[in-house]
Protein backbone atom coordinates (compact mmCIF):
# COMPACT_ATOMS: atom_id res chain seq x y z
CA UNK A 1 0.00 0.00 0.00
CA UNK A 2 1.28 3.45 -0.87
CA UNK A 3 1.61 6.29 1.62
CA UNK A 4 0.69 9.79 0.49
CA UNK A 5 2.13 13.14 1.51
CA UNK A 6 -0.19 16.05 0.88
CA UNK A 7 1.84 18.22 -1.49
CA UNK A 8 0.14 21.58 -1.60
CA UNK A 9 2.57 23.51 0.61
CA UNK A 10 5.12 23.06 3.41
CA UNK A 11 7.66 20.44 4.47
CA UNK A 12 6.74 17.96 1.73
CA UNK A 13 10.13 16.50 0.70
CA UNK A 14 11.19 16.03 4.31
CA UNK A 15 8.28 13.63 4.95
CA UNK A 16 8.81 11.95 1.59
CA UNK A 17 12.46 11.35 2.44
CA UNK A 18 11.73 9.75 5.85
CA UNK A 19 8.97 7.57 4.36
CA UNK A 20 11.13 6.56 1.40
CA UNK A 21 13.77 5.22 3.76
CA UNK A 22 11.13 3.23 5.65
CA UNK A 23 8.94 1.83 2.87
CA UNK A 24 10.87 2.52 -0.34
CA UNK A 25 10.47 5.54 -2.62
CA UNK A 26 8.16 3.63 -4.97
CA UNK A 27 5.61 3.38 -2.15
CA UNK A 28 5.46 7.09 -1.42
CA UNK A 29 3.31 9.48 -3.45
CA UNK A 30 2.95 13.25 -3.29
CA UNK A 31 -0.78 13.95 -3.35
CA UNK A 32 -2.06 17.16 -4.91
CA UNK A 33 -5.41 16.15 -6.39
CA UNK A 34 -8.34 13.75 -5.99
CA UNK A 35 -6.92 11.28 -8.45
CA UNK A 36 -3.64 10.95 -6.54
CA UNK A 37 -5.49 10.71 -3.26
CA UNK A 38 -7.31 7.58 -4.48
CA UNK A 39 -3.96 5.87 -5.03
CA UNK A 40 -2.80 5.96 -1.41
CA UNK A 41 -3.83 4.07 1.69
CA UNK A 42 -2.69 6.64 4.25
CA UNK A 43 -1.90 10.35 4.21
CA UNK A 44 0.46 12.79 5.92
CA UNK A 45 -0.57 16.44 6.11
CA UNK A 46 2.76 18.23 6.55
CA UNK A 47 3.65 21.39 8.40
CA UNK A 48 3.48 24.65 6.52
CA UNK A 49 1.15 27.59 6.67
CA UNK A 50 -2.23 26.25 7.72
CA UNK A 51 -4.14 29.10 6.05
CA UNK A 52 -2.46 28.28 2.73
CA UNK A 53 -2.92 24.52 3.05
CA UNK A 54 -6.57 24.91 4.02
CA UNK A 55 -7.30 27.23 1.10
CA UNK A 56 -5.69 24.92 -1.44
CA UNK A 57 -7.45 21.85 0.03
CA UNK A 58 -10.83 23.47 -0.39
CA UNK A 59 -10.04 25.00 -3.78
CA UNK A 60 -8.97 21.70 -5.24
CA UNK A 61 -11.80 19.60 -3.88
CA UNK A 62 -9.54 17.50 -1.68
CA UNK A 63 -11.13 18.77 1.51
CA UNK A 64 -14.38 16.78 1.40
CA UNK A 65 -12.68 13.58 0.27
CA UNK A 66 -9.97 13.71 2.97
CA UNK A 67 -12.69 14.34 5.54
CA UNK A 68 -14.77 11.40 4.33
CA UNK A 69 -11.77 9.08 4.21
CA UNK A 70 -10.72 10.11 7.72
CA UNK A 71 -14.18 9.20 9.02
CA UNK A 72 -13.96 5.80 7.34
CA UNK A 73 -10.79 4.85 9.22
CA UNK A 74 -8.17 5.92 6.67
CA UNK A 75 -4.94 6.67 8.62
CA UNK A 76 -3.92 10.34 8.61
CA UNK A 77 -0.96 11.98 10.32
CA UNK A 78 -0.97 15.77 10.64
CA UNK A 79 2.16 17.59 11.76
CA UNK A 80 2.25 21.22 12.91
CA UNK A 81 -0.09 22.96 10.42
CA UNK A 82 -1.50 19.46 9.76
CA UNK A 83 -2.63 19.26 13.38
CA UNK A 84 -4.56 22.51 12.89
CA UNK A 85 -6.21 21.24 9.69
CA UNK A 86 -7.35 18.03 11.43
CA UNK A 87 -8.88 19.72 14.48
CA UNK A 88 -12.55 20.32 15.14
CA UNK A 89 -12.14 23.76 16.68
CA UNK A 90 -9.64 26.55 16.16
CA UNK A 91 -8.72 29.68 18.04
CA UNK A 92 -9.37 33.31 17.22
CA UNK A 93 -6.61 33.25 14.53
CA UNK A 94 -8.32 30.36 12.75
CA UNK A 95 -11.65 32.18 12.92
CA UNK A 96 -10.23 35.46 11.68
CA UNK A 97 -8.66 33.89 8.61
CA UNK A 98 -11.78 31.89 7.79
CA UNK A 99 -9.78 28.69 7.74
CA UNK A 100 -11.81 25.51 7.18
CA UNK A 101 -10.96 22.64 9.51
CA UNK A 102 -11.43 18.94 8.73
CA UNK A 103 -12.87 18.25 12.18
CA UNK A 104 -11.45 14.73 12.40
CA UNK A 105 -9.87 15.30 15.81
CA UNK A 106 -12.07 16.23 18.75
CA UNK A 107 -9.73 18.91 20.01
CA UNK A 108 -9.47 22.69 20.09
CA UNK A 109 -6.16 23.99 18.76
CA UNK A 110 -4.30 27.21 19.33
CA UNK A 111 -2.11 28.53 16.52
CA UNK A 112 1.41 29.87 17.13
CA UNK A 113 1.14 28.73 20.76
CA UNK A 114 4.89 28.91 21.34
CA UNK A 115 5.50 32.32 19.77
CA UNK A 116 6.94 33.58 16.51
CA UNK A 117 9.80 32.30 14.36
CA UNK A 118 12.59 33.47 16.67
CA UNK A 119 10.99 31.51 19.53
CA UNK A 120 11.38 28.25 17.57
CA UNK A 121 13.18 25.54 19.53
CA UNK A 122 14.10 21.89 19.85
CA UNK A 123 13.47 19.88 23.01
CA UNK A 124 13.53 16.26 24.11
CA UNK A 125 10.01 15.02 24.66
CA UNK A 126 8.66 11.83 26.13
CA UNK A 127 6.22 9.95 23.93
CA UNK A 128 5.18 6.78 25.70
CA UNK A 129 4.20 4.91 22.52
CA UNK A 130 7.74 5.36 21.18
CA UNK A 131 9.45 3.80 24.20
CA UNK A 132 11.65 5.31 26.86
CA UNK A 133 14.19 7.17 24.76
CA UNK A 134 13.10 10.82 24.40
CA UNK A 135 12.20 12.07 20.93
CA UNK A 136 13.62 15.38 19.65
CA UNK A 137 10.69 17.70 19.06
CA UNK A 138 11.33 20.48 16.54
CA UNK A 139 8.90 23.34 17.16
CA UNK A 140 8.59 26.06 14.50
CA UNK A 141 5.79 28.58 15.14
CA UNK A 142 4.10 25.50 16.54
CA UNK A 143 0.47 25.14 17.56
CA UNK A 144 -0.78 23.14 20.55
CA UNK A 145 -3.87 21.29 21.60
CA UNK A 146 -5.57 23.73 23.90
CA UNK A 147 -8.40 21.46 24.94
CA UNK A 148 -9.49 17.90 24.32
CA UNK A 149 -13.19 18.06 23.49
CA UNK A 150 -13.88 14.34 23.84
CA UNK A 151 -11.73 12.68 26.46
CA UNK A 152 -13.18 9.27 25.67
CA UNK A 153 -12.01 9.38 22.06
CA UNK A 154 -8.77 11.38 22.10
CA UNK A 155 -5.61 9.92 23.60
CA UNK A 156 -2.88 12.35 24.64
CA UNK A 157 0.47 10.95 23.48
CA UNK A 158 2.78 13.71 24.69
CA UNK A 159 2.93 16.95 26.59
CA UNK A 160 5.65 19.57 26.83
CA UNK A 161 5.63 22.17 29.61
CA UNK A 162 2.10 21.05 30.35
CA UNK A 163 1.01 21.79 26.77
CA UNK A 164 -0.50 18.93 24.77
CA UNK A 165 1.63 18.41 21.65
CA UNK A 166 0.73 14.95 20.33
CA UNK A 167 -2.65 13.20 20.20
CA UNK A 168 -4.33 10.23 18.62
CA UNK A 169 -7.97 9.54 17.89
CA UNK A 170 -8.18 6.07 16.39
CA UNK A 171 -6.84 6.38 12.83
CA UNK A 172 -5.98 10.08 13.22
CA UNK A 173 -2.57 11.04 14.59
CA UNK A 174 -1.27 14.58 15.08
CA UNK A 175 1.75 16.43 16.44
CA UNK A 176 2.51 20.08 17.10
CA UNK A 177 6.18 19.47 16.29
CA UNK A 178 7.92 18.37 13.08
CA UNK A 179 8.85 14.66 13.43
CA UNK A 180 10.24 14.74 9.85
CA UNK A 181 12.99 17.15 10.93
CA UNK A 182 14.31 15.26 13.95
CA UNK A 183 16.35 12.63 12.11
CA UNK A 184 14.54 9.97 14.14
CA UNK A 185 12.07 7.78 12.24
CA UNK A 186 10.27 6.36 15.27
CA UNK A 187 7.24 8.58 14.93
CA UNK A 188 6.79 7.73 11.25
CA UNK A 189 7.23 4.08 12.14
CA UNK A 190 4.48 4.42 14.71
CA UNK A 191 2.21 5.96 12.07
CA UNK A 192 3.06 3.15 9.64
CA UNK A 193 2.12 0.61 12.32
CA UNK A 194 -1.42 2.03 12.13
CA UNK A 195 -1.59 1.49 8.38
Amino acid at each position, binding site marked *: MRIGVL*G*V*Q*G*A*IEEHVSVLSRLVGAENVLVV*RDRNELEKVGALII*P*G*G*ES*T*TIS*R*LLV*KNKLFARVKALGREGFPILGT*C*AGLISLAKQGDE*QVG*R*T*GQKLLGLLDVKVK*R*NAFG*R*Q*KDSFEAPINISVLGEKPFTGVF*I*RAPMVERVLDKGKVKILAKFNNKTIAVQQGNILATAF*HPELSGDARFHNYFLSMV
Partner: protein
Amino acid sequence: MVKHGVVMDVVNAKQARIAEKSGAVAVMALERVPADIRAAGGVARMADPKKIKEIMKVVTIPVMAKCRIGHFAEAQVLEFLGVDMIDESEVLTPADVGGHIDKSKFKTPFVCGARNLGEALRRINEGAAMIRTKGEPGTGDVAEAVRHMKLMNKQIEALRKMTIEELADKANEYGVPLKLVEETRNLGRLPVVNFAAGGIATPADASLMMQMGADGIFVGSGIFKSSNPLKRAKAIVEATTYYDKPEVVAKVSEGLGEAMKGIEAKALPVEKRMQERGI
Protein backbone atom coordinates in the same frame (compact mmCIF):
# COMPACT_ATOMS: atom_id res chain seq x y z
CA MET B 1 7.26 26.22 7.40
CA VAL B 2 7.98 28.59 4.56
CA LYS B 3 8.54 26.21 1.68
CA HIS B 4 6.50 25.65 -1.49
CA GLY B 5 4.53 28.80 -1.60
CA VAL B 6 4.40 32.48 -2.31
CA VAL B 7 5.75 35.35 -0.22
CA MET B 8 4.12 38.66 -1.10
CA ASP B 9 5.32 42.25 -0.68
CA VAL B 10 2.80 44.41 1.16
CA VAL B 11 2.90 48.03 2.26
CA ASN B 12 -0.07 48.23 4.62
CA ALA B 13 -2.51 46.21 6.72
CA LYS B 14 -5.11 46.07 3.97
CA GLN B 15 -2.71 44.54 1.46
CA ALA B 16 -1.43 42.13 4.12
CA ARG B 17 -4.97 40.84 4.66
CA ILE B 18 -5.46 40.37 0.93
CA ALA B 19 -2.18 38.44 0.75
CA GLU B 20 -3.19 36.18 3.63
CA LYS B 21 -6.61 35.59 2.14
CA SER B 22 -5.08 34.61 -1.19
CA GLY B 23 -2.98 31.87 0.43
CA ALA B 24 0.43 33.57 0.77
CA VAL B 25 2.84 31.67 3.07
CA ALA B 26 4.30 34.93 4.36
CA VAL B 27 4.24 38.65 3.70
CA MET B 28 7.15 41.05 3.31
CA ALA B 29 6.37 44.27 5.17
CA LEU B 30 7.65 47.27 3.24
CA GLU B 31 7.41 51.02 3.09
CA ARG B 32 7.20 50.82 -0.72
CA VAL B 33 7.22 47.97 -3.24
CA PRO B 34 10.42 47.73 -5.32
CA ALA B 35 8.83 49.35 -8.41
CA ASP B 36 8.03 52.45 -6.32
CA ILE B 37 11.47 52.41 -4.67
CA ARG B 38 12.93 52.39 -8.16
CA ALA B 39 10.67 55.24 -9.27
CA ALA B 40 11.30 57.34 -6.15
CA GLY B 41 15.10 57.07 -6.28
CA GLY B 42 17.18 58.31 -3.35
CA VAL B 43 18.22 56.16 -0.39
CA ALA B 44 15.90 53.27 0.45
CA ARG B 45 15.95 52.15 4.09
CA MET B 46 14.25 49.77 6.53
CA ALA B 47 10.50 50.40 6.86
CA ASP B 48 9.00 52.37 9.74
CA PRO B 49 8.67 49.99 12.75
CA LYS B 50 5.14 51.30 13.21
CA LYS B 51 4.22 49.99 9.76
CA ILE B 52 5.84 46.61 10.42
CA LYS B 53 4.04 46.26 13.76
CA GLU B 54 0.73 47.19 12.15
CA ILE B 55 1.18 44.43 9.56
CA MET B 56 2.32 41.89 12.18
CA LYS B 57 -0.84 42.61 14.12
CA VAL B 58 -3.29 41.88 11.33
CA VAL B 59 -1.98 38.61 9.85
CA THR B 60 -1.42 35.16 11.31
CA ILE B 61 1.13 34.10 8.68
CA PRO B 62 4.84 34.94 9.10
CA VAL B 63 5.93 38.51 8.51
CA MET B 64 9.29 39.28 6.93
CA ALA B 65 10.96 42.67 6.66
CA LYS B 66 13.94 44.06 4.80
CA CYS B 67 17.10 45.66 6.13
CA ARG B 68 19.91 47.22 4.12
CA ILE B 69 22.87 45.03 3.19
CA GLY B 70 25.41 45.19 6.01
CA HIS B 71 23.13 47.26 8.27
CA PHE B 72 23.19 45.05 11.35
CA ALA B 73 21.55 47.73 13.50
CA GLU B 74 18.45 47.69 11.28
CA ALA B 75 18.51 43.89 11.57
CA GLN B 76 18.67 44.19 15.37
CA VAL B 77 15.61 46.45 15.29
CA LEU B 78 13.72 43.96 13.11
CA GLU B 79 14.68 41.11 15.43
CA PHE B 80 13.50 43.13 18.41
CA LEU B 81 10.17 43.78 16.67
CA GLY B 82 9.82 40.02 16.32
CA VAL B 83 9.62 39.69 12.53
CA ASP B 84 9.77 36.05 11.45
CA MET B 85 12.49 36.50 8.86
CA ILE B 86 14.88 39.29 7.91
CA ASP B 87 15.63 39.94 4.24
CA GLU B 88 19.08 41.51 3.90
CA SER B 89 18.07 42.99 0.61
CA GLU B 90 19.61 44.62 -2.43
CA VAL B 91 16.27 46.35 -2.98
CA LEU B 92 17.32 48.81 -0.27
CA THR B 93 20.42 50.97 -0.58
CA PRO B 94 23.39 49.01 0.80
CA ALA B 95 24.86 50.33 4.06
CA ASP B 96 28.09 48.39 3.67
CA VAL B 97 29.46 48.19 0.15
CA GLY B 98 32.19 45.79 1.31
CA GLY B 99 30.32 43.16 3.28
CA HIS B 100 27.18 41.60 4.68
CA ILE B 101 25.75 41.11 8.16
CA ASP B 102 27.18 38.29 10.27
CA LYS B 103 23.85 36.53 10.38
CA SER B 104 25.02 33.78 12.72
CA LYS B 105 24.73 36.31 15.57
CA PHE B 106 20.95 36.51 15.19
CA LYS B 107 18.19 34.21 16.35
CA THR B 108 15.86 35.37 13.59
CA PRO B 109 16.51 33.58 10.29
CA PHE B 110 17.73 35.58 7.28
CA VAL B 111 17.00 35.38 3.58
CA CYS B 112 19.47 36.89 1.09
CA GLY B 113 19.55 37.40 -2.65
CA ALA B 114 22.05 35.72 -4.96
CA ARG B 115 22.82 35.74 -8.68
CA ASN B 116 25.15 32.78 -8.74
CA LEU B 117 26.46 29.92 -6.60
CA GLY B 118 29.33 31.95 -5.16
CA GLU B 119 27.01 34.65 -3.84
CA ALA B 120 24.58 32.03 -2.50
CA LEU B 121 27.26 30.05 -0.66
CA ARG B 122 28.84 33.20 0.80
CA ARG B 123 25.46 34.22 2.21
CA ILE B 124 24.83 30.72 3.58
CA ASN B 125 28.28 30.74 5.14
CA GLU B 126 27.41 34.06 6.82
CA GLY B 127 24.34 32.35 8.31
CA ALA B 128 21.51 32.85 5.80
CA ALA B 129 18.74 30.26 6.25
CA MET B 130 17.19 30.91 2.87
CA ILE B 131 18.35 32.14 -0.53
CA ARG B 132 16.37 33.76 -3.30
CA THR B 133 17.48 34.73 -6.76
CA LYS B 134 18.01 38.46 -7.04
CA GLY B 135 16.44 38.75 -10.44
CA GLU B 136 15.83 42.41 -11.15
CA PRO B 137 13.39 43.72 -8.52
CA GLY B 138 10.61 46.09 -9.43
CA THR B 139 10.74 45.42 -13.16
CA GLY B 140 8.05 42.78 -13.70
CA ASP B 141 10.56 41.20 -16.10
CA VAL B 142 11.34 37.60 -15.16
CA ALA B 143 14.40 37.34 -17.42
CA GLU B 144 16.99 38.11 -14.74
CA ALA B 145 15.50 35.63 -12.24
CA VAL B 146 15.67 33.02 -15.00
CA ARG B 147 19.28 33.90 -15.72
CA HIS B 148 20.25 33.63 -12.05
CA MET B 149 18.43 30.34 -11.47
CA LYS B 150 19.92 28.80 -14.61
CA LEU B 151 23.42 29.87 -13.70
CA MET B 152 23.10 28.51 -10.16
CA ASN B 153 21.80 25.17 -11.45
CA LYS B 154 24.63 24.97 -13.97
CA GLN B 155 27.27 25.76 -11.36
CA ILE B 156 25.87 23.13 -8.98
CA GLU B 157 25.78 20.59 -11.79
CA ALA B 158 29.43 21.39 -12.60
CA LEU B 159 30.44 20.52 -9.02
CA ARG B 160 29.32 16.93 -9.54
CA LYS B 161 32.11 16.15 -11.97
CA MET B 162 34.87 17.79 -9.97
CA THR B 163 37.75 16.12 -8.13
CA ILE B 164 38.43 17.09 -4.53
CA GLU B 165 41.23 19.42 -5.68
CA GLU B 166 38.90 21.19 -8.10
CA LEU B 167 36.29 21.52 -5.36
CA ALA B 168 38.93 23.08 -3.11
CA ASP B 169 39.74 25.57 -5.88
CA LYS B 170 36.03 26.42 -6.17
CA ALA B 171 35.78 26.91 -2.41
CA ASN B 172 38.74 29.24 -2.67
CA GLU B 173 37.22 31.12 -5.60
CA TYR B 174 33.87 31.48 -3.81
CA GLY B 175 35.51 32.40 -0.50
CA VAL B 176 33.71 29.69 1.49
CA PRO B 177 34.79 26.54 3.38
CA LEU B 178 35.35 23.41 1.29
CA LYS B 179 32.84 21.59 3.51
CA LEU B 180 30.02 23.81 2.24
CA VAL B 181 30.96 23.21 -1.41
CA GLU B 182 31.11 19.45 -0.78
CA GLU B 183 27.74 19.50 0.95
CA THR B 184 26.22 21.31 -2.05
CA ARG B 185 27.81 18.82 -4.44
CA ASN B 186 26.49 15.85 -2.44
CA LEU B 187 22.98 17.29 -2.18
CA GLY B 188 22.91 18.40 -5.82
CA ARG B 189 21.24 21.60 -4.66
CA LEU B 190 21.74 24.47 -2.20
CA PRO B 191 21.76 23.25 1.41
CA VAL B 192 19.00 25.78 2.24
CA VAL B 193 15.63 26.65 0.72
CA ASN B 194 16.01 28.54 -2.57
CA PHE B 195 13.17 30.77 -3.78
CA ALA B 196 12.83 32.72 -7.00
CA ALA B 197 12.46 36.49 -6.82
CA GLY B 198 12.89 39.64 -8.81
CA GLY B 199 10.48 40.24 -11.68
CA ILE B 200 7.78 37.58 -11.22
CA ALA B 201 4.44 39.03 -12.31
CA THR B 202 2.19 36.25 -13.66
CA PRO B 203 1.08 32.70 -12.74
CA ALA B 204 3.10 31.40 -15.69
CA ASP B 205 6.20 33.23 -14.39
CA ALA B 206 5.75 31.38 -11.08
CA SER B 207 5.32 28.04 -12.88
CA LEU B 208 8.42 28.73 -14.95
CA MET B 209 10.60 29.39 -11.91
CA MET B 210 9.21 26.37 -10.02
CA GLN B 211 9.95 24.14 -13.01
CA MET B 212 13.51 25.45 -12.99
CA GLY B 213 13.90 24.17 -9.43
CA ALA B 214 12.79 27.03 -7.17
CA ASP B 215 11.39 25.96 -3.78
CA GLY B 216 8.91 28.83 -3.81
CA ILE B 217 8.25 32.33 -5.09
CA PHE B 218 8.58 35.92 -3.94
CA VAL B 219 6.28 38.38 -5.67
CA GLY B 220 7.12 41.98 -5.03
CA SER B 221 5.52 44.63 -7.15
CA GLY B 222 3.73 42.09 -9.37
CA ILE B 223 0.60 41.76 -7.25
CA PHE B 224 -0.29 45.17 -5.90
CA LYS B 225 0.84 46.95 -9.08
CA SER B 226 -1.69 44.93 -11.08
CA SER B 227 -5.33 45.78 -11.71
CA ASN B 228 -6.87 42.97 -9.61
CA PRO B 229 -4.50 42.10 -6.74
CA LEU B 230 -6.63 39.48 -4.94
CA LYS B 231 -7.40 37.52 -8.07
CA ARG B 232 -3.80 37.68 -9.28
CA ALA B 233 -2.46 36.73 -5.83
CA LYS B 234 -4.72 33.66 -5.67
CA ALA B 235 -3.74 32.70 -9.21
CA ILE B 236 -0.02 32.93 -8.49
CA VAL B 237 -0.45 30.84 -5.31
CA GLU B 238 -2.23 28.15 -7.25
CA ALA B 239 0.25 28.20 -10.13
CA THR B 240 3.07 27.76 -7.61
CA THR B 241 1.55 24.57 -6.16
CA TYR B 242 0.40 23.15 -9.52
CA TYR B 243 3.36 24.53 -11.45
CA ASP B 244 3.74 21.35 -13.50
CA LYS B 245 0.08 21.22 -14.55
CA PRO B 246 -0.42 23.58 -17.53
CA GLU B 247 -4.19 23.02 -17.33
CA VAL B 248 -4.24 24.60 -13.86
CA VAL B 249 -1.89 27.46 -14.84
CA ALA B 250 -4.05 28.11 -17.91
CA LYS B 251 -7.24 28.19 -15.89
CA VAL B 252 -5.97 30.57 -13.22
CA SER B 253 -4.38 32.86 -15.82
CA GLU B 254 -7.75 33.63 -17.42
CA GLY B 255 -9.17 37.13 -17.07
CA LEU B 256 -6.69 38.41 -14.51
CA GLY B 257 -6.77 41.94 -15.89
CA GLU B 258 -3.69 44.05 -16.49
CA ALA B 259 -0.38 42.79 -15.13
CA MET B 260 2.06 45.41 -13.89
CA LYS B 261 3.41 47.39 -16.81
CA GLY B 262 7.03 46.83 -15.91
CA ILE B 263 10.30 47.65 -17.59
CA GLU B 264 12.63 45.44 -19.54
CA ALA B 265 15.47 44.61 -17.16
CA LYS B 266 18.05 44.52 -19.93
CA ALA B 267 17.27 48.13 -20.83
CA LEU B 268 18.41 49.27 -17.38
CA PRO B 269 21.88 50.79 -17.15
CA VAL B 270 24.23 48.97 -14.75
CA GLU B 271 23.96 51.68 -12.08
CA LYS B 272 20.18 51.21 -12.00
CA ARG B 273 20.41 47.45 -11.49
CA MET B 274 19.72 46.40 -7.92
CA GLN B 275 21.27 42.98 -8.55
CA GLU B 276 24.75 44.53 -8.73
CA ARG B 277 24.51 45.29 -5.00
CA GLY B 278 26.02 42.98 -2.35
CA ILE B 279 28.03 40.30 -4.13
